């Protein structure tokens, strides 16, 4: 251990970039990009709406107004009411909580397991890399929605299981991307140098791999948030995710589909909400990609 301490200054010199400098550079570039700033501001507002839902929503999301069933947008109910007289705006506001929490947790599953598998595969290499990547290839060979359906089939339909399904179904793609990014770092001189002077594996992984794949991680995690929101809503829409009366956007759309001839607003507003949020996330992801991975084509 003491030996490692002695070598630390040398390792710091051979490491390519100073992580603190990367952070401030990135932040400056990000703040220069108007579309990124607008997207961040918008997403912060959406998150605040979710957090402050009980204060902002005009009514309880499950309160039923029997006298105004399937009523169009009006002064009392700005976005109208549904088939059992619940206020659509209140359900939409509470839906931010459900939709964002579930999607973020799904992304967390993808992020941690995907990063772990990708880094391990790239760093260890050899047979472990081969085995892990063949398993990922098999899972990637199935369209992600089929994989997610298979997982829901195993676990049974529920919001938690849909979240796990969406998270797990995205792991193979994520792990492959991270492995690709990590492989290019593995072959760089500074990792070789650290190894040759006896740095521990965990030090190299923590201090050299992670900071250098951080940009790629940030870009793909952001883009995966959009995918997770869409996929979770899709599973709820087909009845395999959130179950009524949970105010989840996909479930609301599914309920709205049944009344689209009489009540256009039921299927319209949740759809707009999903589209705007996912659009902002994707726009932000694109802006981040321009900063971290300018060579990649979209």
């Amino acid at each position, binding site marked *: 251990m003491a030996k490692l301490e002695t070598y630390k200054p040398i390792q710091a010199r051979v490491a390519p970039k100073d992580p603190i400098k990367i952070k401030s550079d990135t932040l400056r570039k990000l703040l220069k990009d108007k579309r990124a700033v607008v997207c961040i501001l918008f997403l912060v507002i959406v998150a605040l709406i979710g957090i402050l839902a009980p204060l902002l929503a005009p009514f309880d999301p499950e309160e039923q107004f029997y006298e105004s069933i399937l009523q169009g947008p009006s002064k009392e109910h700005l976005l109208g009411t549904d088939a059992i007289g619940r206020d659509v705006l209140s359900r939409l506001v509470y839906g931010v909580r459900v939709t964002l929490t579930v999607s973020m947790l799904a992304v967390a599953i993808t992020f941690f397991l995907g990063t772990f598998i990708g880094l391990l595969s790239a760093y260890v290499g050899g047979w472990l890399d081969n085995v892990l990547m063949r398993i990922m290839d098999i899972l990637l060979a199935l369209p992600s929605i089929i994989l997610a359906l298979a997982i829901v089939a195993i676990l049974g339909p529920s919001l938690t299981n849909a979240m796990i399904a969406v998270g797990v179904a995205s792991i193979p793609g994520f792990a492959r991307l991270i492995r690709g990014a990590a492989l290019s770092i593995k072959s760089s001189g500074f990792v070789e140098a650290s190894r040759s002077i006896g740095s521990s594996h965990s030090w190299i992984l923590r201090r050299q791999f992670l900071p250098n794949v951080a940009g790629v991680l940030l870009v793909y995690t952001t883009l995966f948030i959009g995918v997770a929101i869409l996929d979770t809503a899709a599973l709820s829409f087909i009845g395999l995710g959130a179950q009524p009366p949970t105010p989840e956007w996909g479930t609301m*759309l599914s309920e709205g*589909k049944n009344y689209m001839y009489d009540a256009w607003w039921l299927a319209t507003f949740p759809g707009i909400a999903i589209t705007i949020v996912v659009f902002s996330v994707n726009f932000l992801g694109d802006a981040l990609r321009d900063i971290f991975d300018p060579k990649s084509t979209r």
Partner: protein
Amino acid sequence: MKHFIINRVLSGILVIFGISVFSFLLIHFIPGDPVKIMLGINASPEQVEKLNHHLGLDKPLLVQYWQYITNAFQGDFGTSLKTGRPVLIEILDRFPETVKLAIFGLFVAVVIGVSLGIVAAKFKDSFIDKMCTAFATLGISIPSFWLGILLVLVFSVKLAWFPIANGTGFRDLILPAFTLGVVASTMIMRLTRNGMVEVLSNDYIRTARAKGLDDGLILFRHALRNVLIPVVTVIGLQLAALLGGTVIIEQVFNWPGLGTLAIGAIMSRDFPLIQGIVLFMGVMYVTINILVDVLYSIIDPRVEMGTKEA
């Protein structure tokens, strides 16, 4: 070239073997007793034992897999618990409808994607280009099932131009195919645009312009041909993706394809049918991907160089 094709086919076979193991294990991944879950809580012990025996779950795992895979090779994917019909018949009944939808969806995607890609490249960095890029981002952000609902609302309910989702005729096909196509067109559009922008800056295009050739001729005869190779690959891959992508759209339009079958099977916990669909879709997907790769290597021999990095 031969080496590449053999390699690709062998790796495909390995992946199909993996998918067969995954689909076989599905039933074993279920927490608790799968047979009790399939039969429900009111099932008698005799019924449980009978189904256990029928599905072969009372045999050792390796024997079960061997039986599963040899039966599958003979076209026997088991029997649907819900309908009592062979799984393969159930799948083959629905598959043509899914293929029809995917192919028409792909057609729409190619028409929209390639034309918008060309327009965006022609007017690079202009307002039109920015609009096309925004369309591409919107295309991947909009939930396909919501787009489908919107189209039904506008074109079937309000304008009454198309029938309201209940048949499988040509007129019934237009809205679901358009929904699928719009979402799938975004990738084709981006690729066409980026390829065109790159090609249009080449010397031979400048020469063609200097010769006074017509802009349209330069775009379609000189530039587009060179852009199309990667675009054709993506189109092939999109077909495979669309076969999976129809799952949700089928629900919106009550389309009697594989997706509707799969969701029904999950709801009724009909595991032999779920396993069959997963295996079937996996094999389809892998086969299309191999065919696309092989075709690509024939069209553009340089592709072999890229295989080493995988």
